[in-house]
């Protein structure tokens, strides 16, 4: 799904997006208006405003990020990334955020797995997929991360035990603002996480797709393998270095 694409084909989709976005933004605004007019207790009002502002901020940031990812066309600078180190960094955060025990997050990818990518966007993609898997896991469920080398690529997958989705929804879950009703446990979020993840993976020349496997949903990622690994940490060629640079 693209925010900007060949004219005509995507007009309907863009209108759908605008409708969804208007709805998502106006809902917390109307709740705030009601709270301002009716809430008597100052402490409760403050607490409520703070909660709504947090939610709106997340929504605005996610929506803008998706739009930026989708409209920007220049290639991202890439570097060698060790997937196991990335996984450890992300799971530490995820366990803290969700109070999940680390023992329910398994990583079978070994230290030899290095990919080429843009660290921040790849981290964001994997983080969103991981959050999604945790959110849709049953009590005590295990999330498994595994992969294997596939020619010039690493094929990585993340599998949950949340029961999966209907086959016809396997592609739809990547559309913005899609939240499936159904038997999968878990809710919350704006339905932007997987759209951002797919855009982020595609922006670095990879692929992201879903399938039903085992006891839940499996998210597959194809990422360009790095041949040399941890040989240098010359400053990553990101353009957001803030010290003056000589052009």
């Amino acid at each position, binding site marked *: 799904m693209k925010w900007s694409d060949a004219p005509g084909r995507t007009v309907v989709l863009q209108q759908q997006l605008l409708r969804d976005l208007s709805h998502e933004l106006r809902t917390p605004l109307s709740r705030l208006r009601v709270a301002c007019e009716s809430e008597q207790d100052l402490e409760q009002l403050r607490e409520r405003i703070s909660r709504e502002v947090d939610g709106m*901020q997340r929504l605005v*940031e996610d929506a*803008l*990020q998706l739009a*930026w990812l989708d409209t*920007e066309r*220049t290639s991202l600078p890439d570097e060698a*990334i*060790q997937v*196991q*180190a*990335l996984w*450890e*960094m992300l799971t*530490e955060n995820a366990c*803290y955020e969700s109070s999940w025990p680390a023992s329910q997050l398994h990583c079978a990818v070994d230290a030899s797995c290095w990919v080429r990518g843009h*660290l*921040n966007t790849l*981290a*964001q993609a994997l983080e969103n997929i991981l959050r999604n898997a945790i959110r849709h896991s049953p009590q005590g469920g295990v999330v498994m991360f595994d992969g294997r080398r596939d020619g010039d690529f690493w094929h990585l997958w993340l599998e949950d035990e949340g029961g999966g989705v209907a086959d016809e929804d396997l592609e739809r879950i990547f559309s913005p603002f899609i939240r499936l009703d159904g038997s999968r446990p878990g809710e919350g979020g704006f339905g932007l996480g997987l759209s951002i993840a797919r855009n982020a993976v595609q922006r670095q020349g990879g692929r992201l797709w879903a399938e039903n496997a085992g006891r839940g949903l499996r998210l597959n990622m194809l990422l360009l393998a790095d041949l040399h690994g*941890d040989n*240098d*940490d010359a*400053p*990553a060629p*990101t*353009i*957001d*270095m*803030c*010290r*003056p*640079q000589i052009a």
Partner: protein
Amino acid sequence: MTPIAIGHPRILSIEDDPVLGAYVHEHLGRCGFQVTWCQNGQEGLAIARQQAFDVVLMDILLPGLDGLAVLTQLRQSHSTPVVLMSALGAEADRISGFRLGADDYLPKPFSMAELRVRIEAILRRVAFDRRPVPIPTPPATDCLRFDDELGEVFWGEYAAGLTRSEYRLLDTLNRNDDEVLSKAFLYQQVLQRGYAPHDRSLDMHISQIRRKLKAIGYTEREVRTVWGKGYVLSAVDEVV
């Protein structure tokens, strides 16, 4: 983080929004900073050239002269640390690279606590840079040996195989043993750039340091995450 021991740091705040400007002025004043507030780019540039400041806070969209132009002109003669503030967001920044020349960039909306952490990180880095001679690495209490020339740490005969950034990071944490260092400061001090929430380089270096220390069997101390505050190198069972 240790309070900055140089009296009342002078802050110039160039912000045209009356509500935010007044709030920043009042809040930083209460935190012990001497704040000068002006609402116009041209005027701000003139003040920044005439008087000495420890940090300049500046909005990007300003009447008169925009923040980036002020920054460019200020940089021709002054190296005063500059923190840019803007509602253009982290994504726009990443794409256009507009913070070139600034010491840090704070996307709006931000909390006063976050603003203060950023200012203190810069003040601390500047104080660190100004030390007359580098302080030698404190003797390791537990035999993790830092070799500055090789940029490597040793545990017994085993070398951890750190990269340059990882070594600088671990060395900085080691020199501030048991003190929680903010991400904003570690970005300033080790990676020499501002901190952005979507920037995961520092976290990734920490992840690698942990792996490498574990691989050589070093478990006496570890780099621990103090949520909402930063990182600390401390004994495993120690309460921070």
